[in-house]
Structure formats: C-alpha cells, structure tokens
C-alpha cells in the first residue's frame, strides 16, 4: 500500500471511529440538527449549512469541469450566491410556516400546505429520484480517489464498489447522528487543502495566477471564458438560474431551514454565505493548472484532474491529505443523502401510501433500503458517460421542479391549487425524464439540443431543467386557474390543517439504522 492510500485509510478509520463514538451519545448532537432542534445560533448553523453544501461536486467536479470546459465552470461560483439571496426571504417564510405547526420535513410542508397526502408522496418521489444521481456522484468521487491514489492498482470499477461499501458501512456506523466532529474535520481539512493548492500550484508552475491565465490563453484562446458551442452564456445563465432556484428544494437543504432558533439567523447568514462561495475559486484555479500541466485526460477522466495534478506536484503523504479531504467530502454529505432518501422512501412514501403501517415496519424498511439505494446509485454510476457535474445537474433538473408549487404557496397562498401543484410537478418531471433517457448516453448532456435538433443557438443551449421548469410553471398556473374555486386550495390548509398528523421525528424513526 502506498503512503497516500495509507493516509486516506487512516482518515477513514478516524471518521468511522468518531461516528461510532457519536452513536454512543458522546458527541455534539447532530440529531438535533437533522431533526430540527431549532436551537442553534448563527455560527453553528453557518458551519453546518456550509458543511452540507460542499461535497465531492465542488472538490473534484469543479476542477473537472474547468479541465473539460474551461469558463463554463464559473457557474459554480454564481449559483450559490443567488440562492443565498433568495434564502433571505424564502427560509424565514418556510420557518414561520413550519415551526408553529411542528413540521419536520419538506414532504410534511407540502402535505400541510396543500392538505394533500398524495402530494406528499409525489414530492418524496421527486426528492428521492433527484438524490440518486447526487449519491451516484459521491460514489464516483470516492471511486476516483481510491483508484487514482492507488496509482491504478485498484480499477475504477472496483473502486466504485469499494466506495459504495465504505459509504454504507459509514452509514451503519453513524446512523442518523452522523458526527458533527467528522463534519468539522472535513470542513477544516477541505478549506485549508483547497486554499493551499489553489494558490501554490499556479505560483509553483507559472510564477503567478495572472501568468497562468496568459499562458492558457496563448495555447487555448478563449478557453477561460464561455465558449460558443453548447456551454455558451445561454447555458451559463439558464444553469445558474436552475441551480439557484433548486438550491433549497433538496430535502436536506430544506430541512436546514427548520433548525434555526429564530428567523433572523437566516437573514444574517444570507450576508456571509456568499463569501464562503469564494472557496470554489481555488478549486477552479487547480483545474486551470491541470489544463496545461496535465494534458491528455480523456473525456471520462476529467474529474481526476485535481488529484492527477496533485500527484504530479506533491509528495505521497500530502496527496493522501488531499485524497482524505475528498473522501470526507463524499462521505459526510453522501451519508446524509443515503439516510435521507431511505427515510423518505419508508416514512413519506411507504407510510404515505399505507397510513396504518406500524413504526417497526417503517424502521425495518429504512434499514433495508440503505443498501438498496446505494446499489441504485452504483447502477447509476455504471450507466456511464456522465461526469460529476452532469450527474449533479440531472439531480437539480429534477428537484427544481418543486420550486413553483413551494414558493407560490408561500407568496400567494391559495393561488396554486392541489391539482395545479400536482400536474405541474408531474409534467416537469416527465419532461426531465424524457430528455434524460432520450440521448445515447443518459444524462451526459445538459442542453436542449440533445432532444430537439435544429434550434437557434439561444434555445439550443438552454439547460434542460429550465425548459421543464417553464412547462411546469405554465401547467401549474393553467390547472390552478381552472380548478380554483373560492376558498379551496392552500388557504384552507393555512388556517387549519384538516389532516391529523402524528408528529414523529425522522431521527427517532431511523435511530437504529
């Protein structure tokens, strides 16, 4: 075993050890975070939100997108910022609605707002469908880290299986608690590693960041801006819009809105969160270094750019640290995604369809689903063709379909009817599915022209998810107008929820997983 792999294994042992410790209840209480303790101050919520958001996608995918497509990667810098601005108004509104009603999840919100159990099931289906590619992306990242640091001794196929095994094992070890310490180690390690290599590599190879970009422009003119074909400004803007709107539609990011002590926490966070986004710029710089100093990565290998260039420039133990940061970036959010999706399937979908199901049945189902969902994500990785970024964008295309029904129900209560919300989401989902499975390699492209040929470029380069979102919105509005009658719709639910709901924290349900 080489030293890099050894360091990574040590960090893995540490993470699992901390998780086991957390399980015995001697850790910061992450359960409160997941299940909505509603008692956190600004700094802790800031750290947890930031920790949940940064995943393999930022770490390996960002540099990979630079390597493959240059300036298109700037979208990663932009969308979070716009999402935080939206959060200034969105999260307090969600919090104000959910807190007095003791709602614990996104599905609960929809059930209450639209007084519809079936909408809760549909929303949960969308959420799980979106989380599978997100999960697949973490596995792909883990696979890349393992196979690259082993210098190819472990094949990438074997590495993905190892990644799935490690993730499932971590989930079994940590349960719903996770470990706030692991999350903290991950944040500190990632932040210091990324800032260091983002500054060191350009200076080491080129003398300065400016000199590097001049050299890139000399050998690849226009590469550091958006190119004309496909990933054009049209793609950039529609992708930023899609991902900014979808940012808080994920069950785990939505859930973070329920944890704060008061709504002012969100407003203050909206000031500081955009700055955290600057961390990504350092990842992009590493990607640009690799463009010149690590030429010749094939189309499917671009996600390996960051580790590849690190191996070229640093000694083994340091590559191990970088790999460990990457591993934790996959493990921490990956485990949360895995638990969240298993819990949603058993609690919101299975129980939504069988309201009489016993607690024991639901708990057992959750346990059983962890490996099943992990396998689903493995299958998604092997379906092939996608990079980390295209996987994430597929997830976003799906999850953003919840945006119209969620936001309109807060902005104009009663305007969107139950039927309107359901038909809008279903239409959006159908369009994304049709677009995803129509190409030669499912989900490998994110632009409209893969589905419809011969479009003018301002339409052809549109992000698929945005097209579905527009159709979704139109259908939501039309069906709502047709079905609205006087006092029907969400307004009823706002005054007095008609359903009877037994409060049961997700945490308690899944504690034994």
């Amino acid at each position, binding site marked *: 075993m080489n030293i890099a792999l050894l360091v990574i294994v040590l960090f893995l042992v540490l993470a699992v050890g901390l998780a086991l410790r957390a399980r015995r209840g001697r850790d910061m209480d992450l359960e409160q975070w997941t299940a909505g303790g509603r008692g956190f101050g600004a700094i802790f919520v800031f750290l947890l939100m930031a920790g949940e958001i940064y995943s393999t996608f930022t770490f390996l995918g960002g540099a990979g997108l630079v390597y493959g497509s240059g300036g298109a990667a700037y979208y990663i810098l932009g969308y979070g910022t716009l999402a935080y601005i939206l959060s200034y108004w969105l999260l307090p509104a969600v919090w104000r609605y959910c807190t007095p009603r003791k709602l614990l999840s996104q599905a609960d919100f929809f059930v209450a707002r639209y007084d519809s159990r079936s909408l809760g099931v549909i929303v949960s289906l969308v959420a799980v469908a979106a989380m599978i590619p997100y999960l697949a992306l973490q596995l792909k990242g883990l696979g890349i880290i393992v196979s690259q640091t082993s210098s190819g001794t472990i094949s990438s196929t074997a590495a993905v299986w190892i990644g799935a095994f490690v993730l499932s094992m971590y989930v079994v070890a940590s349960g719903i608690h996770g470990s706030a310490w692991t999350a903290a180690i991950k944040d500190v390690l990632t932040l210091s590693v990324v800032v260091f290599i983002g500054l060191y590599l350009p200076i080491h190879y080129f003398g300065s960041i400016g000199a590097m970009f001049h050299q890139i422009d000399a050998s690849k003119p226009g590469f550091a801006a958006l190119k004309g074909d496909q990933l054009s400004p049209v793609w*950039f803007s529609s992708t*930023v819009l899609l991902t900014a709107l979808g940012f808080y539609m994920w069950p785990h990011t939505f859930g973070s809105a329920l944890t704060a002590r008061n709504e002012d926490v969100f407003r203050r966070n909206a000031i500081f969160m955009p700055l955290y986004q600057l961390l990504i710029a350092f990842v992009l710089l590493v990607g640009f270094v690799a463009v010149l100093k690590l030429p010749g990565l094939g189309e499917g290998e671009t996600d390996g750019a960051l580790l590849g260039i690190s191996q070229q420039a640093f000694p083994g133990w340091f590559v191990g640290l970088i790999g460990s940061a990457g591993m934790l970036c996959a493990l921490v959010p990956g485990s949360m995604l895995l638990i969240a999706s298993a819990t949603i399937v058993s609690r919101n979908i299975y129980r939504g369809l069988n309201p009489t199901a016993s607690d024991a049945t639901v708990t057992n189902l959750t346990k059983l689903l962890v490996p099943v969902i992990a396998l689903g994500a493995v299958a998604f990785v092997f379906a092939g063709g996608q990079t980390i970024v295209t996987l994430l964008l597929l997830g976003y295309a799906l999850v953003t379909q919840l945006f119209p029904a969620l936001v309109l129900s807060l902005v104009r209560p009663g305007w969107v009817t139950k039927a309107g919300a359901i038909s809008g989401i279903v239409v959006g989902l159908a369009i994304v599915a049709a677009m995803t499975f129509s190409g030669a390699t499912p989900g490998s492209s994110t632009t409209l022209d893969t589905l419809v040929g011969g479009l003018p470029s301002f339409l052809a380069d549109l992000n698929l998810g945005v097209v579905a979102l527009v159709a979704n919105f139109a259908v939501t509005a039309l069906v709502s107008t047709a079905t609205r009658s006087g006092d029907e719709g969400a307004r009823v639910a706002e005054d007095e929820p008609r359903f009877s709901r037994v409060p049961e924290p997700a945490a308690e349900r899944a504690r034994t997983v």
Partner: protein
Amino acid sequence: MKVQHVLAGLPFLGILVGMFFANSVEPYVLGLPFAMFWVVMWVVVSAGLMAVVYRLDSRDRLRERGDRS
C-alpha cells in the same frame, strides 16, 4: 417595490444578464480572466448588498415598532 428588493435583484441582473456582456478573457483583473473576475466580483458585491438590505430591514422593523407604541 421596496428598495431592498431592488438591491437584492442587482446580483441576478449582474450574473444572469451581465454574463452575456462580460464573457471575455480580456482584460485581466487581479490576474483573473474577465469572465471569472466578473462572477467573483458579484459574489463579494452580493454579500455587501445583503448587508445593506439587512440594515434597511432592521431599521424598518424598529420604525414599525416605534409607530405602534
């Protein structure tokens, strides 16, 4: 529409619409290609704008409370 909404809308204009005009490698600013600098700049500006929005909202809330009492 309140001034807060206008301020918060500026980054949307800057990033979503502005990119069509800022999409260029040159001129380099702080060593960065212009397109990258443009987005980085809006990230920083957004934080500043939201700080102003927060101030204005707090002031409005105080004033409302003052009117009531």
